[in-house]
């Protein structure tokens, strides 16, 4: 039997999840709309002063992105769990971590990437400068995959539990705080004219760390949850 390479396995899994997501577009769109609505609610809540909004923008967009990614976490493993495909994945004679990584990447492409693409439009709503919007996009690109990966651990741990959604937020949100701080900090650094690169490199470091450990931890959590 010819064994598949890990890259082959990765691409099969990513393609499968993307096809599945495309056949259920409504879910993807819902997350995006949630993100846009949350961000748009803030000016209505705190008033339309342009100066204040400009200062708030990075924080608001980041918090909304965090909440939106929490919202979509439930879908990451639960559908596969319910129809039994997850069981079969545990029996795949290759590393489960690779499959998990593929699922996380696919999940990020359908739930994280749209947020990043949408963010500039929202930045304009908040009257952000072109430069800070640029940094916002880079920070989101570095930060949202980390959020997906940390979230995946939470989703795996709470698989099949009642009240999973709220529980996942309780577990995952505290762990996401560093990403939030550096992500919003990068944009604030542009506004206040201090160094951006340190924030971005810290975000990058978090991403690398998450990339190295979370697929493995998530795989372990899945095995525990499937017992």
């Amino acid at each position, binding site marked *: 039997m010819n064994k*598949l390479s890990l890259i082959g396995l990765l691409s099969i899994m990513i393609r499968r999840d993307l096809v599945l997501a495309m056949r259920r577009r409504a879910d993807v769109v819902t997350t995006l709309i949630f993100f846009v609505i949350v961000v748009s609610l803030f000016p209505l809540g705190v008033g339309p002063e342009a100066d204040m909004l400009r200062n708030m923008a990075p924080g608001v967009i980041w918090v909304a992105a965090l909440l939106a990614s929490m919202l979509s976490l439930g879908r990451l493993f639960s559908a596969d769990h319910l129809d039994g495909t997850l069981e*079969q994945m545990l029996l*795949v*004679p290759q590393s489960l971590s690779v499959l998990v990584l593929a699922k996380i990447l696919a999940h990020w492409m359908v739930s994280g990437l749209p947020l990043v693409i949408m963010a500039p439009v929202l930045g304009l709503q908040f009257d952000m400068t072109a430069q800070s919007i640029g940094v916002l996009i880079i920070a989101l690109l570095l930060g949202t995959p980390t959020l997906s990966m940390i979230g995946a651990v939470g989703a795996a741990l709470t698989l099949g539990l009642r009240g999973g959604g709220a529980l996942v937020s309780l577990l995952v949100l505290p762990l996401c705080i560093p990403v939030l701080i550096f992500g919003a900090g990068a944009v604030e650094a542009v506004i206040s004219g201090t160094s951006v690169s340190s924030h971005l490199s810290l975000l990058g470091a978090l991403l690398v760390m998450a990339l190295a450990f979370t697929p493995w931890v998530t795989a372990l959590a899945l095995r525990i949850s499937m017992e």
Partner: protein
Amino acid sequence: MLEISNLACSRGDHLLFSGLNFSLSPGELLQVQGANGSGKTSLLRTLCGFIMPDTGEILWHGQNIRELGDQFYAEIIYLGHLNAIKDELNALENLRIGAGLAGCKMDDKQVIAALRRLGLRGRETLPVKVLSQGQRRRVALARLLLSNASLWILDEPLTALDVGAVELMQELISEHLVNNGMVIYTTHQPLEVVGVATRRLALT
């Protein structure tokens, strides 16, 4: 060669079975019997390595399956209560992806042949969600034809199947046994394979 020695398993604080010993050689068929809740499914899931046994060992060709890991997974196929097929995909896609993950490269001809053998001619490209329960089960069973695993672990393979499909299933099992395969299954329906003595394991 699968050997089980002194296996005990509990769910929560409830002990399901203990001191279980049996072995299975190539060409043998084992039926696990027992009332509802006697631990049939748990036994099969323990054999797959999902559940860690409380005590005891599961040996595959003399080696513990925990140590073998991926090598063991490459030699088994498990069919659970759930069909493990995606409603949004069609039968062909489901099987192609399933086989791909298991590490076999499949061309569509083989997949279509397997589906036709299971009586799904003309339904290969319909989304699975429009198929009936029995037809979905047949899609799941088609996976057996596409894998070259030597140990089949089947949990209630006959649910939702009609008489014709049950006969077909008997045929598939007997072919597999002739090729020196091994089968462990649970069922509440009669399943007799011609020419092979079914060994029975009763759980209480």
